[in-house]
């Protein structure tokens, strides 16, 4: 018969340290840390030694230093980059600028990609939950197709199988008759251009937002006093619209003679109406709106119209040109644009009589007027925003916003692919909110909109944000596949730099550090947001 006496532990002396869980825990951590330090140290040392042997980190004075390894960045890049974002680039610029241009292109893809993928993903996610059989099944097929095929394959298919198979530029596809042109050369979209009077209009819009906010608060107080709801959304919207529209007309009216165009002596007109009658004389018609009809009837030839068309000379990407051509289009006046890269070339062309109309700022035109006899300044109005419409000039579109085939391929590819994953995340988020939450909201009398806004979405968002962060990071990292469709992103320009300079380790350090900082920035922002909306549990 054994005697059972409960052992009451009084402290450390009863446990030897090799069995003490706390000591073992600390020892394990120290051992792991040591292993990591030794492994990375060995790799780094190896790399640095090899680099030193190759002379990669050698300075001009023969000594070795990490910083000197990056001196190659100042050498001329000597290669061309197809497209740039924000800053310009020339092959005579340094490698560092080439990499920077690539990084900015990556940021452009990432920003547009994240915005569009979020919109597409949210719509597709909600569509999958729809009770409409067709809608939910289309969404399901989209998600399954995109998730189950490799992204690289999709990009190649988009680029070689879709975009490059579009018709040549002269036969560009116009979907639904909209001024959107899709061709082998990419996609040309209309794009809003802000005129100088836009500043006044934006002022009005800010004022409108402010007034709407005040009205919203005042009407809210009144609702509380009356104890019933009034249609304050409607009133607020109406106020905003009214002030913004009044601002538009005020800005248009006060812009007055902000913009002028210089007309050659071949075009003697005092204003836009004068230009109209000049064109009517040239074409021999009373109504310019009938011209396109006459051309299709055969009473007027296209050549005649092309010859009669006003030749507008301008500096490339001049805002005033957008303003003028928008008005010429409105009055059905045919025109063609000659865009030059330098201001003096435009004035020379005008002086040589190659242009009917010369568009530039007031001062330049005043100077040009004195140089050419018979030239008259015509004031043309402006509205705060004019749409720049792509138009075919020679072998390319001018005006509007151009998505190159490469950019379109990588952007559309990433948006379609990431959107499918986001759709699943959104669907899971909405479904994760218990049914009882909606029932309680309905039982309390909340409207359907209030139920979604105040009860369901705040809870769904908390489930959505963490996996959504991963998808944003995936999109940014996957953008390095741009090299497959020839879009000059960070990795593409860095890769060329690597090949040209041979400085592989330095280039990899730069590229990895760049992607790492993009990713950390996105994680930081979304984690911060996620923390703000996280649940308090017991």
């Amino acid at each position, binding site marked *: 018969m054994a005697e059972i006496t409960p052992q009451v532990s009084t402290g450390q002396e009863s446990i030897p340290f090799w069995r003490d869980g706390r000591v073992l825990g600390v020892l394990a951590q120290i051992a792991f840390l040591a292993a990591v330090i030794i492994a990375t140290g060995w790799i780094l040392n190896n790399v640095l030694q090899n680099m030193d042997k190759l002379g990669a980190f050698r300075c001009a004075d023969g000594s070795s230093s990490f910083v000197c390894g990056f001196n190659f960045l100042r050498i001329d890049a000597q290669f061309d980059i197809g497209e740039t974002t924000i800053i310009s680039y020339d092959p005579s610029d340094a490698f560092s600028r080439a990499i920077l241009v690539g990084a900015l292109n990556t940021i452009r893809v990432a920003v547009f990609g994240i915005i569009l993928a979020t919109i597409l993903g949210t719509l597709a996610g909600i569509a999958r939950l729809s009770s409409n059989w067709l809608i939910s099944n289309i969404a399901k097929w989209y998600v399954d197709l995109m998730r189950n095929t490799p992204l690289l394959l999709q990009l190649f298919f988009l680029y070689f199988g879709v975009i490059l198979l579009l018709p040549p530029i002269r036969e560009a596809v116009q979907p639904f008759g909209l001024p959107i042109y899709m061709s082998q050369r990419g996609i040309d979209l209309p794009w809003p251009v802000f005129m100088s009077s836009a500043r006044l209009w934006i002022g009005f819009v800010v004022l409108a937002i402010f007034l709407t906010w005040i009205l919203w608060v005042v009407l809210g107080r009144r609702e509380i006093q009356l*104890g019933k709801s009034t249609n304050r959304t409607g009133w607020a919207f109406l106020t905003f619209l009214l002030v913004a529209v009044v601002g538009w007309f005020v800005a248009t009216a006060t812009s007055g003679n902000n913009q002028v165009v210089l007309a050659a002596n071949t075009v003697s007109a005092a204003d836009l109406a004068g230009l109209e009658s000049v064109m009517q004389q040239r074409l021999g018609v009373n109504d310019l709106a009938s011209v396109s009809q006459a051309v299709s009837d055969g009473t007027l030839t296209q050549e005649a119209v092309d010859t009669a068309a006003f030749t507008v000379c301008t500096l490339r990407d001049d805002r005033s040109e957008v303003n003028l051509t928008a008005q010429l289009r409105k009055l059905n006046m045919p025109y063609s644009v000659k865009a030059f890269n330098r201001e003096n070339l435009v004035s020379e062309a005008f002086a040589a009589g190659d242009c009917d109309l010369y568009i530039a700022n007031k001062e330049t035109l005043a100077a040009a007027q004195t140089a050419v006899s018979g030239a008259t300044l015509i004031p043309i109005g402006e509205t705060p925003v004019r749409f720049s419409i792509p138009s075919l000039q020679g072998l390319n579109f001018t005006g509007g916003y151009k998505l190159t085939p490469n950019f379109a391929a990588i952007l559309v590819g990433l948006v379609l692919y990431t959107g499918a994953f986001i759709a699943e995340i959104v669907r899971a988020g909405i479904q994760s909110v218990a049914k009882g939450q909606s029932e309680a909201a309905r039982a*309390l*009398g909340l409207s359907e909109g209030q139920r979604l806004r105040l009860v369901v979405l705040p809870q769904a968002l908390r489930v959505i944000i963490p996996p959504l962060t991963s998808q944003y990071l995936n999109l940014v990292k996957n953008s390095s596949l741009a090299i497959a469709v020839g879009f000059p992103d960070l990795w593409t320009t860095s890769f060329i730099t690597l090949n040209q300079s041979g400085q592989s380790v330095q280039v990899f350090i730069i590229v990895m550090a760049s992607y790492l900082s993009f990713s950390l920035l996105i994680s930081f922002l979304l984690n911060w947001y996620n923390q703000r909306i996280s*649940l308090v549990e017991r």
Partner: protein
Amino acid sequence: MTQAKTEEPKSFGHNEEIIVCRNVRKWYGDFEALKAVSLTVKQGEVVVILGPSGSGKSTFIRCINRLEEHQEGDIVVDGIPLTHDVRNIAEIRREVGMVFQQFNLFPHLTVLENITLAPIHVRKWAREKAEERAMHWLGRVGIPEQANKYPGQLSGGQQQRVAIARTLTMEPNILLFDEPTSALDPEMIKEVLDVMRDLAQTGYTILAVTHEMGFARTVADRIIFMDAGQIVEENTPENFFTNPENERTRLFLNQILHH
């Protein structure tokens, strides 16, 4: 006494018919969940619905505020017919409060925000008024000190009392209880039943689905027994427990009372 007026229901009389259901029928696919259920509840009456699980009792009270849609028959609540007219549905939901088995508090809002959400957004009360009424009802259910905590930080019994306070702050005339104590630990059931007993005595019209026989016996004016989507027996508590009319009722009572 003027203060009391805002918190108590309008009338104490047992004459006005406040809920009228006539031949209410509902199907889930081929399964007929409600088979021509008719019931009239008068103002201030406390009606307890008993029955085995799957008998349609929850489905029935959930039809009254349109959490479930009935397919045939009429439901009229306080003179408002329950149709597809969303305005009628909204009006009825303002009139009828509901307490759920799973509490269904909003986990992202504090207790006070949970309670004031609907008064501010549906009743359009000023925040101060909503908070004042919320604190009043939190005091009435005995947990005013929990106002700034989140639901996840409270016990089950406390959560259910918050849910009751949330319902009462909307000042409904009719209260629907859908098995309010079924998800609670035994020692917390009493605190919730005490609150319900208090409300029954205050004069609310109450329609409660519950398995608490003690509550049914002492508080109810009338007991409804449902089985297989039908009302099998309607009786006073006294008769129901001592001298049930229907064979199925007797079987049910045998099973739950003598185990």
